[in-house]
């Protein structure tokens, strides 16, 4: 067992090297995301092959997601549209 590679340790070691510039990755995704989101081609087109270099997940944190607006205010705001 002692020779088994610990996945989390590997990840932490890699993060400590700062070899991946997450700010740069985020900037690229922010620039390309809107156009890719509406493109007919799938996301694989980003890399030009079927290989995936980065997995991008939507992390839904309990209690921090969007919920509906105040329903009374919604009624008031949408009423304006009809006048």
């Amino acid at each position, binding site marked *: 067992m002692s020779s088994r590679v610990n996945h989390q340790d590997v990840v932490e070691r890699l993060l400590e090297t700062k070899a991946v510039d997450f700010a740069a990755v985020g900037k690229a995704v922010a620039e390309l995301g809107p156009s890719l989101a509406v493109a007919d081609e799938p996301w694989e087109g980003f890399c030009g092959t079927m290989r995936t270099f980065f997995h991008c997940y939507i992390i839904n944190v309990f209690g921090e997601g969007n919920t*509906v607006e105040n329903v009374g205010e919604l009624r008031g705001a949408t009423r304006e549209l*009809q006048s």
Partner: protein
Amino acid sequence: MSELAILGVERPVALPDSPICPLDPHCDAREAPWDQQDLARRLCHALDVAQQAVEQLATTGFTDSDEPGNNVRPEKVISETAFLLFAASTADREEVRIRVEKVARLLIPHARSERMVLGICLEPALALDFAQAHICLGRLGYPDDTFDTLLRRSVASQARSGHERVPHRRLEQEWLARAWRDPRSHQPKGISRAALQSVLGRPMDLLNGHRDDVYAFTHALMYVADWNLKPRALPRPRAAILADAEAALARCLDEQDYDLAAEVLLAWPLTGQSWSAAAAFGFRVLARVEDKAGFLPAPSTRLQRLNSLEGAERSAYLLATAYHTIYVMGLLCAAALQPARTPPAQVPTGEARCGNAAAIVPFLNQPGPSASQSADVRQTREPSVQQGHWWDEFQRLNAIERDAIAGLLLNVALRRKTVRRDFGELRDLLAAAHAAGLADSPAASQAAELLERLALLGRRLAPDRFSRTRNLI
């Protein structure tokens, strides 16, 4: 610019506030169905919005450069409008029929546009997807033989199956194919293999599952049920499917995900005649929210953004972010208007056990996902300030009605504890549920399995390592 009739629900029905605990669960008032005229009014509202959606979004859709998540492609609006019309056509109401006909005539040029024809021609594996609105319109009595000829050629091509699909999407294809080939003459036998492979055919992950799982559940059911016209056999007993649906409903109500909540509620009228106490309560919550907001809202409609826009831009934003949830409420009311499918006006209490709600409510002491996350709210132990719309409606129930939906409360609490990794409270909650006779549910069973796995994990790991692992999960 045409006027956006987003406030078509202008006559909120005074939902029946429960009297002070009439303890006879079998009195006539409790078995009375929801007012059919009110259901028709809500459906007509959805159809009026559908007219606006076709007029404003069916040609170019909606593009939001600030929030691309709001983008709506025209094909989506066209297909969903056609499905709403198909569903509405099963409601035997004159005011509905008039609106269906009006919107259908508006939709025809979009459903059979050059863009759709090109899609069918160029991408045969997606032919039925491009033809969905055409097929629904054909089923409503608006055929197009020329369009059918091209569609037949496309679905007969070698590449017709060259697109891999998940089971609920395969069910959609099967449903479209049946609807296109005159469903009156073809009654499929047995259970669809895709239904067996879908989440309908096996227990859903009710504690850690994703929103997409619930989406797959609701859509698979819609296609299997064929809106009660030519339903195929369910892959599991109705009771097992509805038990999963109740847990999914609890999650959706707690997260104010009313789009998905309304879809989940379809499980009752699309599989049989009875509505459980939790389902009847869920319908009341949605109806109340719809009456208060003027439409059933989605989180995507943001007031700050709405108020920053003007004119046609504002109208398009509101419609693009709101139409889908409004449609789903229309679908639900259309199903509820079918014979013997109407929800009860009051929460059924025949299976209520006195004191069950009180046994679970203390475990709702953490804020729900829809509650404010301010520090003062986080620290309070008073449930009433920490919940969403469903909690407001819960307060309107009398004691026996609250007891009748204790299973729903349990489902809410189980998911909250699991998502927060509060396993100690999860154990206590299960013990309380067991003592109250509520633990015989899929979510409770899955929670017990989770605790068993965690106990094994705890024995395997040293205490400090277990503590570290807990932080990671």
